[in-house]
């Protein structure tokens, strides 16, 4: 399918559209006026959502229900999804003000928007997040935040360059693992020697057959930077399946269960062991009766296992008889879980609980694992240089070329 002329046209159309949007006056509606139940518009965070299917719908609901948020834009490449999302917003505010967009660049070009939440497939996360920062937006980006290792530093760099608040996703890191976190941070288990994470499966190549287009979807935009492929409803399904029935299963769009659930489980493990600010320095590839598993080696001596045989998820090996000085467990700021944490930080300019740098450190674990399994061997990792030292082959897998015209 020829794309060049079509995509150039889209880009030019966008430039015209954006110019028009910027030139248009911002009309203050009646909803902009505050009352005893709600702060005035000037004190609200004006938000838009990009990628509103499935997880994005949940994120939209969480932000839309906040009194300190004014939700003004929805963006999705599926017509039905964005129209439904717009209707949700309009019903909430009893007006027709929410604008629906097909192209995220239109949302990012709007001067009235302070922050966006992103819940597209993973292959779009980095491009949209970086572009949002360039446009001065704060970002709540769903997990897994990255598709490749190189995307992480680019996202962190854009956030820091423009002083943006960028939060990763995973409400589970703080919400689901307290029974592990609390005793470790209380020092009750002594020095932690190892922790195990069980998560599957690895991503695979999607080779599904072409199907007739069964929905109104901008297919070129859905694919975006990913290799061109024909439409198939399972290829682009946003369901939470990681076993071949959604994009989460496939390597062009996701790191598979290794990143999708890995964001939660590895995130919880790293939080439990207080190494959220570190990246591993080596990954060892093991085989047990033909079944592979990994051990990640951290600079402080911690070992994080992946799928260690006969070991439960989040099984912790401490130091018997040793007690450490308790440390306060980091918590969300503000009210309303991870969403409230993000909004509070937008207001105060603090770094959120899942600051993008910490979220990226979790994603790195998943990506290193996927590469080790793909190459079926051990790897060394230089976190400062973001490369596999002396390993030209592995370094080829740090990133991948994006389909034109997309770049970061």
């Amino acid at each position: 399918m020829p794309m060049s002329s079509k995509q150039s046209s889209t880009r030019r159309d966008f430039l015209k559209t954006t110019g028009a949007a910027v030139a248009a006056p911002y009309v203050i509606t009646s909803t902009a006026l505050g009352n005893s139940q709600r702060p005035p518009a000037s004190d609200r965070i004006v938000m838009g959502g990009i990628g509103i299917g499935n997880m994005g719908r949940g994120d939209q609901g969480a932000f839309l229900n906040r009194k300190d948020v004014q939700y003004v834009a929805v963006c999705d490449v599926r017509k039905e999804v964005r129209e439904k999302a717009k209707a949700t917003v309009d019903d909430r505010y009893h007006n027709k003000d929410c604008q629906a967009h097909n192209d995220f660049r239109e949302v990012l070009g709007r001067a009235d928007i302070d922050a966006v939440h992103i819940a597209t497939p993973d292959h779009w996360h980095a491009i949209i997040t970086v572009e949002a920062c360039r446009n001065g937006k704060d970002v709540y980006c769903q997990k897994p935040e990255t598709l490749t290792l190189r995307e992480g530093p680019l996202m962190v760099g854009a956030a820091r360059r423009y002083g943006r608040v960028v939060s990763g996703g995973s409400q589970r890191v703080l919400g689901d693992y307290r029974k592990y976190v609390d005793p470790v941070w209380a020092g009750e288990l002594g020095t932690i020697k190892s922790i195990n994470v069980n998560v599957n499966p690895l991503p695979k190549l999607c080779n599904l057959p072409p199907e007739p287009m069964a929905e109104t979807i901008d297919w070129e935009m859905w694919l975006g930077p990913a290799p061109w492929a024909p439409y198939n409803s399972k290829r682009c399904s946003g369901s939470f399946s990681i076993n071949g029935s959604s994009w989460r299963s496939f390597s062009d769009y996701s790191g598979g269960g290794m990143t999708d659930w890995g964001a939660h489980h590895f995130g919880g493990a790293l939080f439990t062991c207080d190494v959220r600010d570190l990246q591993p320095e080596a990954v060892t590839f093991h085989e047990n009766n033909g079944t592979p598993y990994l051990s990640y080696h951290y600079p402080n001596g911690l070992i994080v296992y992946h799928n260690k045989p006969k070991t439960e998820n989040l099984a912790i090996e401490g130091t018997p008889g040793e007690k450490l000085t308790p440390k306060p467990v980091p918590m969300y700021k503000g009210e309303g879980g991870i969403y409230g944490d993000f909004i509070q930080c937008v207001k105060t300019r603090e770094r959120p609980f899942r600051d993008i740098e910490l979220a990226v450190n979790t994603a790195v674990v998943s990506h290193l694992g996927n590469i080790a399994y793909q190459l079926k061997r051990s790897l060394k990792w230089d976190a400062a240089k973001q490369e596999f030292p002396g390993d030209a082959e592995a370094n080829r897998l740090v990133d991948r070329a994006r389909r034109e015209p997309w770049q970061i």
Partner: protein
Amino acid sequence: MLDEAFEALKKFDWGTDVAAVAPIDDAVAATHGQADARRDLEQRLVAALGGKLSRDAQDYVCRKLAIIGTAAAVPALASRLGAPHHSHMARFALERMPAPEAAQALRDALPKVTGDLKIGVLSSIGARRDKAAIAAVSGLLSDNDPSIATAAAHALGAIGGAKSAQALAAARPSKSSKPAVIDAQLACAESLLAEKNEAEAMKIYQSLAGDHQGRLVRLAATRGMLACASKQG
């Protein structure tokens, strides 16, 4: 098994069983550190690329060459950079290939390709941080197509360093590509700071800190100046 997989590759297309070509995946991993076996595998892949394969099968070959391809694979890949259906996957193989011939192929393609394909090549040159391409990329900062000028700016920002910064400072961007030029200048300043060249980084930040810039850029520049000062201090 490998012979059968290459035979299966001839019929490989969207909808066929991926397992049929899995022995090629296995061979990529199994030949690590075995130069002769790798060379043989690469030759078979390159030869397959020259045969009658579906687009999906050609893409599959490019995915494998992205991991094991050497200078020997570059001519076959370079010849695809101007083809709208194949340019991306050729870059998929070339972008991360350590061989200098891969960088040269992208540089050679830059003046020949147009539109979105040129943007793609610029993106790959930037990702490779190819300093030898700075002059050619700089020439595109004033391209009539704002998308290409924007892509050129981002490529220079990714390459970083003093020469990229100089080219960006000298640019006279259009209104639509100006934000990308400024973003790239900030990226260059960060790369200079990382190289401990605080003086050059500071010059860039100072040039962007004036009232003629928007608030976002002024804040970024001020933040950069503080970073320079703390490193110098």
